[in-house]
């Protein structure tokens, strides 16, 4: 009996945010950071956390004036209807690029690590059918599901970290000198690109309660994310060294592969992959909800639920034909997606904030 049936609280929204960032982070962060900042890469998340914190403050301030609006309404209000609609279109196109990317990444990751010689379409179709099932019940069900999935993910991660501590070698993480500051900042900006999904969260801003605690919960989220990413980098870099991580495809998976505890618990990477399936499911489902809400606001529809089935079919075709090889995906991801995420997630809200301050609306 939450007051207002379709609303979720800001804490649930933050859990959603953490799950959404965790899955791409495991994939992107070690490789990107190792490429840019070498041994000192494990300090890069601190920079990313600072950037995220700034955005949290920006949104906190914006939501002090607009109590219950979604992103699109805020933009239309601050910058005029035309620019608001234009931004909605841009966000929609961007999300329509992200969804097939993540779906095909999900299928490719499963095929590449645990299920060789399998047609990725099977994974894509099965996960899309499941998403179509949950879409009937809306955002609330997804948030509740996530409140179960996220602790599972966090606990698994903590256990893996504890199990991997005997394999860490500090020599791989040192030396950190003044010369590494610039590469660290570089890597930090790249990593922050993933945390920019914070802005996308507010597309469903009119369904989120308790916006007064954005700042407090935002701080907790930022700290958690920072610790999580630092641990992830220490895990992967500390076991193998940056030069090996730069070249591998699934560094976390390889790190997990070498765990061997008392000769009983070995090769638990399949369990990790199963947890990944769950968090990828939440991620893709969330973005589909965002896309449908953007379409709803763009075309002024009253309800977006009937569109779900058609949308699934469109997503299926887009993800199968997005790219043929995984290397294209990686290129796309590091050269196009990360900068784009950064712009849409950080720079646009900051510009809006400044414009809003000028126009005395915020």
């Amino acid at each position, binding site marked *: *009996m*939450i007051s207002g*049936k379709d609303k979720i*609280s800001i*804490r*649930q929204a933050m859990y959603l945010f953490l799950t959404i960032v965790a899955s791409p982070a495991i994939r992107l962060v070690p490789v990107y950071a190792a490429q840019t900042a070498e041994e000192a890469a494990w300090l890069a998340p601190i920079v990313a956390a600072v950037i995220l914190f700034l955005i949290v403050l920006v949104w906190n301030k914006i939501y002090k004036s607009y109590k219950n609006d979604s992103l699109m309404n805020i933009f239309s209000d601050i910058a005029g209807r035309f620019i608001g609609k234009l931004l909605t279109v841009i966000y929609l196109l961007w999300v329509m690029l992200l969804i097939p990317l993540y779906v095909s990444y999900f299928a490719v990751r*499963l095929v590449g690590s*645990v*299920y060789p010689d399998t047609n990725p379409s*099977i*994974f894509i179709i*099965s*996960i899309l059918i*499941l998403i179509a*099932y*949950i879409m009937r*019940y809306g955002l*609330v*069900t*997804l*948030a*509740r*599901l996530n*409140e*179960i*999935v996220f602790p599972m993910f966090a606990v698994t991660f903590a256990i893996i970290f504890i199990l991997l501590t005997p394999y860490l070698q500090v020599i791989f993480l040192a030396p950190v000198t003044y010369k590494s500051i610039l590469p660290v900042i570089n890597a930090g900006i790249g990593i922050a690109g993933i945390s920019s999904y914070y802005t996308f969260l507010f597309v469903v801003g009119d369904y989120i309660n*308790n916006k007064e605690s954005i700042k407090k919960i935002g701080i907790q989220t930022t700290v958690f994310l920072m610790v999580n990413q630092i641990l992830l980098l220490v895990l992967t870099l500390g076991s193998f060294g940056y030069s090996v991580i730069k070249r591998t495809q699934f560094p976390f998976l390889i790190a997990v592969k070498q765990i061997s505890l008392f*000769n*009983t618990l*070995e*090769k*638990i990477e*399949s*369990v990790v*992959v*199963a*947890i990944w*399936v*769950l968090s990828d*499911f939440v991620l893709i489902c969330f973005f589909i909800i965002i896309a449908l809400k953007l379409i709803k606001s763009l075309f002024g529809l009253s309800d977006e639920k009937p569109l779900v089935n058609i949308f699934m079919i469109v997503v299926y075709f887009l993800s199968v034909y997005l790219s043929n090889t995984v290397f294209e995906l990686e290129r796309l991801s590091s050269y196009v997606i990360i900068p784009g995420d950064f712009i849409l997630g950080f720079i646009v809200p900051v510009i809006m904030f400044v414009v809003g301050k000028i126009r005395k609306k915020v």
Partner: protein
Amino acid sequence: MFFKRRKKVYKTDKEIFTEKMEKSENELTSSNISNLIQHSADIIFHSVNINGNKNLRVTVIFIEGLVDIMGMDQFILKPIMQEMDFEKCSIEDVVGMLEHSTLFHGVQKIRTKLSECVNDIMDGSVALVFDKVKKAVTFDMKGFDRRSITEPTEENVLKGPKDAFIEVLRTNTATIRRKIKTHNLVIEETTVGKQTLTKVAIVYIKGITNRHIIEEVKKRLDNIKADGVISSGVIEEEIIDNKYSPFPQIMTTERPDRFCASVLEGRVGIIIEGLPTTFVAPGTLNQFLQGPKDYSQNFIASSVFRLMRFTLMVVTLLLPGFYIAITSFHHEMIPTELALSITASKEGVPFPGFIEVIFMLIAFEALVEAGLRLPKNISQAVTIVGALAVGQAAVEAMLVSPAVVVIISMTAVASFTMPDQDFSNALRIWRFVIVILSSVAGLYGLSIGSLLLLIHWSKMESFGVPYLAPFVSVDDKQLQDTLFRLPFSSMYKRPIYLKTTNKKRRE
């Protein structure tokens, strides 16, 4: 506001009868009553002259077997026959005196309508019908045989009270009143069932329970279109939110202490006449994993056992699927020596892994079902014999491999630790689903299966409270009573998802 608006469109037989009687203006005379009900041998019509006076005629109508004959004789018939004051009165005077309680009985009602009088008679009251003035006085004198309060059959606790609910509504409500003595305890009654006219009582504490839940429970009970309420399933199915889910959504219990503890938390209790099991709405997932022993044992021991129960729930759901997944798809997960021995033990077994598991699961279900039918003293022996002998013979005949037998027996043992029977049944069904899914796709199938289950749980709501509460949808997480049981001093607030009016338990 957020429950579906359901209008009451259905009328019980009692109401139809009442309307008919009112329309046709039937008068309250004994001949009319005898037209309606004098078809059974146990409905007694007895004409009496008050005090021997032939002008004062009264008809005594009652159902033999339902009525306490001794009490009726002593406190109703005897005074009527012998009371000296009646000697010189007319009928109207007599009725007037009876109205002001000349007779030694507490519960009496004056009836002027035919339908009310007939309903009272069918319920177990003695009716004194005065034909001349068309009035009747009814006395509630139920005196049928009832089972005495015994030990509960299913949920037994060492340090707790050993009384259980019985089939009589009034005794049950008395048991509850003895445990909760506050004047705020409200017991409302309603009638359900077209032919059976069963009384259903709703129990809550005014000032604690959220009124939306109370109203919703009342509304749903009123809307039950059943012919008769003989088994608990009739009411349970109609008032829960999701009929198509195998999971129980309201808690059933036959122990008054568990019932009262839940009512004190802010839930609404439902007692049904004729059934010793009671319901408590709304039901959430963690209630089905709580055993009654948890509150009488040391909190550290209870916490450990509760954690174990949660883990065993996961084990019983996922273990067979996990075994199939790693022996058919992900062989690298097994330690090498174990892999070699599983391979060796499977040598000669013609079936693939998942066929063995499904076969053993079905065999196990058959054994459990058979154990239910047999009388108690044989059933244990049969199950043991079945498990050991048949299992051993099957392994020797190379129908199944020993590893599968071990896995299935661990699963079986884990499923018996579930405190609630309905929940355990639901888990069994889902276990099959997960086994099938993981035999198709390995660990991916296992994760899809568990995802399906989680989605199923996430969308379920029971009377507006999410099924997975308190793990989800509450900001101020109160996990003191879920995965573990922290000491009572730490549980100082009522469960927050019940939105109670009075939040603090301890001041």
